């Protein structure tokens, strides 16, 4: 047999596509069967799948959510409690997966638009919507590499330790009144605790990889996370002290009745606390400018340098779930949760819109700012953020002490300040939308003539 | 509804395990881990008592105190161990019998 016979396609489809058979590689790990199938049917199967089957998959997910909604809302009392729990957990899983999938796709589109590119455009019919699904398919096919000198059990375990708590955090996040898996009276602390466990997975993965870059990433993560949990918690404590509850449902319900009753606009200290919380939450979910644990220009990829295939995807999913989770907490605590800006239109949709906006701001920040150095990160936390949040907590408590009918003068002053803060918030939002509209109107000019030529529909 | 006894027995087992760890390990950090076991055994006792109507909520409050104390203890102990490590480049507590630091 000569050389050419060896590389001839074996399957009829492969022959039809003139695709050479791939070199025989010994794959290990779980995805052997998938790899074999993909090697055999990939050239035709994957494009077809991406055209049609993923649409069906998406429709199935939507169906599951609809089912969960119906069951959770109406048939709930008729079912045994564990059926309800299972259904809600499955629905939450579907929701969280969609959050992560859309988040990853959205990040790429957002970064593309910010950088005057288009981002993924080909996979799927409309604006590359199936890109992260295609990437997921690719990652499943990848070999599950484990470095020889790695601490293998810990290396295998770490992605799960990162992913599972990130999902568990959603069990306490209310999407609306009654739209919560478990309305605990310590819901806020539960979310924070779960996000704290997530750190362990990262440290575990970084240590178990037995790579110096990973170890550096893990150590940075440990430093950063333990430090930034304090200002994050203190900012939330200021808000919790104002409303006097740790239950996220209670906190959201207390902000009913228009944007002026959102906690953000209650006093200047809480207004500032929202921003300190947001900064600390950026650090706690490793987002730029605090993305030191995976800073690709310093530590090759930080804690997930040695990870490949699906384990890498799990870290990725955990990150995007964490992003949405911290944004959801900010929404519930400061932005009124599911309450609408005008009274009487409360809906989980508002919650999703506000959280998505905060996630988008995270992406916006990531693609705009350079990365901070590790000593600057620690100094920013210990020297500035921590005293400042302490000040906010004390100030907010004092404000609350005097903001009552016993101090009429102060109460009037507080009302004026509240009104001013509300106007300031609206002004900021208006400025944002005005800027966005300006940018959209002048998008061709911003993009530049060279790129404009190649834009579709230009 | 489970009674108090299983919790107490579990806490006894954890206590004995913790003592065994503290005794058998020479690594200072491993000994710290053993101490955490002992503290958790005590806390579990407190919370179980509180749940089963002995002493009301003060069991949970005391458990909180124990957790806080454990955190403080871990911090100070780790600082000492790091210091120890810097001085004699090991965390073997058998090496720490000299008073010169």
């Amino acid at each position: 047999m000569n050389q050419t016979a060896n590389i001839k396609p074996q399957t009829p489809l492969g022959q039809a596509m003139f695709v050479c058979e791939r070199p025989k590689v010994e794959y290990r790990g779980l995805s052997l069967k998938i790899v074999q199938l993909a090697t055999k049917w990939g050239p035709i199967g994957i494009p077809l799948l991406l055209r049609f089957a993923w649409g069906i998959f998406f429709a199935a997910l939507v169906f599951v959510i609809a089912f969960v909604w119906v069951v959770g809302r109406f048939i709930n009392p008729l079912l045994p409690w564990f059926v309800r729990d299972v259904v809600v957990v499955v629905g939450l899983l579907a929701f969280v997966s969609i959050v992560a999938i859309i988040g990853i796709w959205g990040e790429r589109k957002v970064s593309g638009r910010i950088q005057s590119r288009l981002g993924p455009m080909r996979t799927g019919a409309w604006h590359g919507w199936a890109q992260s699904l295609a990437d997921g398919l690719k990652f499943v096919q990848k070999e599950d590499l484990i470095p020889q000198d790695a601490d293998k059990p810990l290396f295998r375990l770490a992605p799960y330790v990162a992913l599972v708590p990130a999902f568990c955090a959603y069990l306490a996040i209310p999407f609306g009144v009654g739209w919560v898996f478990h309305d605990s009276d310590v819901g806020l602390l539960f979310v924070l605790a779960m996000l704290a466990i997530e750190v362990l997975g990262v440290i575990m993965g970084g240590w178990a990889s037995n790579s110096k870059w990973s170890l550096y990433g893990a150590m940075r993560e440990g430093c950063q996370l333990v430090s930034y949990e304090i200002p994050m918690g203190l900012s939330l404590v200021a808000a919790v002290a104002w409303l006097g509850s740790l239950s996220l449902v209670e906190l959201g319900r207390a902000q009913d009745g228009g944007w002026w009753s959102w906690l953000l606009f209650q006093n200047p200290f809480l207004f500032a606390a929202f921003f300190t919380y947001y900064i600390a939450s950026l650090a706690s979910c490793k987002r730029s400018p605090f993305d030191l644990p995976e800073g690709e220009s310093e530590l090759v990829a930080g804690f997930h340098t040695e990870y490949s295939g699906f384990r890498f995807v799990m870290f990725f999913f955990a990150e995007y779930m964490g992003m949405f989770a911290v944004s959801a907490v900010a929404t519930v605590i400061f932005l009124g949760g599911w309450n609408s800006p005008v009274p009487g239109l409360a809906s989980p949709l508002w919650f999703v819109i506000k959280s998505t906006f905060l996630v988008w701001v995270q992406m916006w920040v990531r693609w705009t700012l350079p990365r901070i150095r590790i000593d600057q990160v620690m100094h920013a936390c210990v020297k500035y953020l921590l005293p400042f949040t302490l000040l906010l907590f004390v100030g907010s408590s004092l404000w609350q002490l005097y903001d009552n009918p016993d101090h009429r003068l102060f109460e009037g002053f507080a009302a004026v300040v509240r009104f001013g803060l509300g106007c300031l918030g609206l002004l900021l939002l208006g400025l944002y939308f005005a800027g966005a509209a300006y940018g959209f109107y002048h998008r061709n000019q911003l993009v530049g003539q060279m790129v404009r030529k190649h834009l579709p529909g230009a | 509804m489970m009674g108090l006894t299983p919790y107490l027995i579990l806490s006894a087992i954890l206590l004995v395990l913790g003592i065994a760890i503290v005794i058998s390990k020479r690594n200072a950090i491993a000994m710290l881990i053993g101490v955490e076991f002992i503290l958790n055994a005590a806390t579990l006792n407190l919370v179980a008592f509180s749940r089963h109507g002995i002493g009301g909520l003060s069991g949970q409050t005391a458990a909180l105190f124990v957790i806080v104390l454990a955190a403080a203890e871990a911090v100070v102990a780790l600082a000492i161990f790091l210091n120890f490590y810097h001085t004699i480049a090991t965390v073997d507590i058998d090496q720490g019998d000299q008073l010169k630091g």
Partner: protein
Amino acid sequence: MLEAVIFFLLAGLAVAAGVAILLSTSIVRMAYWLITMLIAVGGLYFLLGAYFVGVIQILVYVGGVAVLLVFGVMLTSRQLAPKLRPGRGEVVWLALVGFVLLEALTLSILHTRWQQNAMAPANSVGEIGRSLLGEFLGPFELVSVLLLVAMLGAAYLARPKVPTQGPQHAKGTTVP
């Protein structure tokens, strides 16, 4: 029924973690087994209806102490790790003492007549807060002071040993 299953799961996990630490020789594995035990005990708190204590256990212990511990392990375990396996004679003594202690404790637990009147898991956060600032105000303040002292002490203990030199900018430059 379900409660018993969950209890035995978590209890088994905690005990397994302890045994694994006893048998383990890798300090990092020990730290992660400790975290397993802490999470299992946190789960038991949830089972006991002490949600606040359980959440605090995870938040403070797992998120703070355990991360710190793993951090310390990373900083100190690279080389010169002391031998972690006890001698044969020690094991015998240890097993003997442990068994006797366990037996004594178990017997005393089983033979005591506990007056049990189970309370419903109440909305305990407010209650705990009130008792912290009322009944337990003295200990609360003491613990605050202790935390401060511990923080200062740790910072003092972990201070740099080598006296650092001041900044030397380009003044000392000599050119060939």
